[in-house]
């Protein structure tokens, strides 16, 4: 008989039968057998796999100790799993966040299937749903047996590469990604079919949906502009000649800070533009037309306002909402750290 698939299972202190809320601060421990929900999981996995150990950690410990994830990950690695399970977390918030964080790290760093399940309102779901396949689960443990059964089946599908990327069919939360799909019919026929259905009131499914965007309120106006500090930022990919940071032409994941100290203007000898999506010749001729340093210095002289002595730059081309949101959050941190009151974003 071939070797059994090695499985490591993560659970919290409650399901690890250590204790409830009063024990949530307990650190990482390892049992060399299935524990609690692991018994049902082991049964569901059958003879093909074996739970080699169970890692147990208090929910508060995991969420409050900065090194907890690394500790757990080190334990997982030690037992050389082929497949990893966490939870199910149902509607336990801190537990769900732990399961999501650990599965994401296991997937990224060990490259093995990492499976968890939780309730749709568990905060761990929204944080990690785009990173991993996350199974749907009810809000409490009454359906434990059914949930671990689905987790086991799902794990085998991931391992065997038979998982279909269809959320409804496979019972996972929609992750917000897509892959190319070849249809039997040309797009030209599909669109005519869809139009006629729409016209006659028959049901049809749009292949693309309107995005669900977060509604962001406009901030209050700055009361006194002359006391404010304004930051210049651009998604037009302005950078020093030679592109020392290797800024990408698009598909960006990071932005860069370039000092403006001691400069009155941006010269074409010192700055260039690496954006891959527009005619950059005007910017290369005069970089001030993308990041208006010359005009900014003039306004400073007139006492209109003050400017932060650096600008932020990235390339806003085929950069998706997920990556843009992450960059935006880091830009907000930058703005807060530097006591900036307003930002002028020049886009291309």
């Amino acid at each position, binding site marked *: 008989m071939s070797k059994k698939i090695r499985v490591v299972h993560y659970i919290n202190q409650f399901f690890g039968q250590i204790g409830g809320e009063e024990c949530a601060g307990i650190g990482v421990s390892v049992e060399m057998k299935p524990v609690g929900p692991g018994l049902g999981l082991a049964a569901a996995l059958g003879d093909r796999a074996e739970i080699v150990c169970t890692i147990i950690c208090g929910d508060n410990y995991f969420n409050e100790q900065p090194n907890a994830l690394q500790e757990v990950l080190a334990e997982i690695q030690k037992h050389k799993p082929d497949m990893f399970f966490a939870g199910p977390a149902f509607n336990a918030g801190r537990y769900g966040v732990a399961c999501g964080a650990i599965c994401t790290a296991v997937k990224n760093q060990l490259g093995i299937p990492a499976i968890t399940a939780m309730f749709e309102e568990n905060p761990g779901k929204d944080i990690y749903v785009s990173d991993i396949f996350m199974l749907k689960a009810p809000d409490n443990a009454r359906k434990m047996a059914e949930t671990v059964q689905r987790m086991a089946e799902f794990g085998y599908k991931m391992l065997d590469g038979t998982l279909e990327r269809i959320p409804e069919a496979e019972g996972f939360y929609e992750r917000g990604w897509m892959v190319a799909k070849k249809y039997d019919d040309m797009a030209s026929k599909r669109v005519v079919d869809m139009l006629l259905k729409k016209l006659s009131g028959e049901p049809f499914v749009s292949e693309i949906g309107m*995005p669900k965007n977060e509604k962001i309120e406009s901030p209050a106006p700055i009361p006194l502009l002359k006391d404010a500090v304004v930051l210049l930022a651009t998604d037009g990919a302005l950078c020093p000649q030679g592109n020392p940071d290797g800024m990408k032409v698009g598909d960006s994941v990071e932005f860069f800070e370039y000092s403006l100290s001691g400069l009155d203007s941006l010269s074409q000898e010192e700055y260039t533009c690496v954006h891959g999506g527009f005619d950059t010749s005007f910017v290369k001729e005069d970089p001030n037309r993308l990041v208006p340093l010359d005009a900014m210095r003039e306004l400073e002289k007139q006492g209109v306002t003050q400017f932060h002595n650096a600008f932020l730059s990235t390339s806003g081309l085929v950069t998706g909402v997920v990556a843009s949101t992450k960059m935006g959050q880091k830009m907000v941190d930058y703005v807060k750290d530097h006591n900036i009151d307003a930002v002028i974003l020049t886009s291309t």
Partner: protein
Amino acid sequence: MRLERLYFDIERVDFCEKSDISNGTLMLAKSELELLCKDTAFSRVEIDVAAPGSDCRLMNVGDITQPTVRLGKEDTTFPGLSGKMYTVGDGRSISLRGVVVTEVVEVDVDIPSYMQLSEEAVEITDFANMWHITIDAFAAPGIAKYDYLLALNLASKRVAQYIATLAANLEPDEIEIFELESKDACGVECIGLTCGLPRVAYLANVFCHRPYTESLIYGASMLESLPTILHPNEILDGALTNRDYDNATNADPTFVWQNHPIILELYRRHGVDLNFVGVVVSNVHHELSWKETNATMASALLANYLNADAVIITKEGGGHPQVDIGIAVDTLEGRYGIKTAIVLVEMLSAKNDSNGQIIFSSDYADAMVSTGCASFVTLPVAKRVIGSNSSDFRGNMTINEAGEMTINHRALKGGQSQLGWTRYGSLKF
């Protein structure tokens, strides 16, 4: 307006002393074609043939054209471009099937396209199933890029016409009639049948962005033009051509306009389950005021002159042309009560976020068909390479001319069609 298209199926292309077509074999005299391409913009031109399934790769591909000629009015083939200005779409035209004329560009472009004729490419683009007569043109010393591109764009049209003319005295394999008009109750000939079927029109948003990143209508850019109505026959008969070299992965080549899949589909169903009433072409300008003007006026043409009940909308170009679609959808549906369905490629995120593909907001845009998302294909080592320019996406990708090459579907000519000439879509998960 009645167009008779005479189709000739070409199964083989060979070189010989004198150009001719017989029994499905197209024989070509290189010297004749080279003479047709002669231009002061070129130092030399190499004519070649790439066979389907031959593991041949074409570097830096420009426009692809179906051989065609307007019988009896040969000098109006590709009107306003290589032919003289004349409203086309009536009479008889020859179309050779299974063979295309393909430009190989020997100057640097911003975002190049490729063609490979191996199995892997057949999965992705129908162009890989065709014979390619290639025009590999080398720029004369000191010639400006745009002068070179103009000469190349015209050369391929002349070659396409010349080759089609070889079939002039032969029996076609198939004849297809394109005619929308019928007589109404008063005996007046009208566009569309008066039979109670829904009146469906097509809004083609073309991308005329800058010289040589543009589509042409009768040889003219729509850069600063207002929208206009075209009869679909005009488009099928060579009035709409492609001249996009720097951003060519965002536009369909001339071949796809000559065989526009949405126009052909609407024709197939004309009088069956719909009443095809015409086409409006409108440019997607990069300035918002132009977008508002063009989308508003295009909607008015569709509503007030074509009296459409429903409209299919496509675009060319990248992200911002979606805004034109958003304005048109809101105007058509919100103001005129005309139903819309949209064709869009999902290319706004290289990482394929499914929630970040639309940059406009509309309650009416609820019927959208995808023509695919970012997807890569690895093409095997090519046994033969035509073309020597390996300019790539601003140094972002290493292209080995003959070696294994992993490229985005859209970089393979025909691998991404915003006109719906593809079976690809996307699967969300």
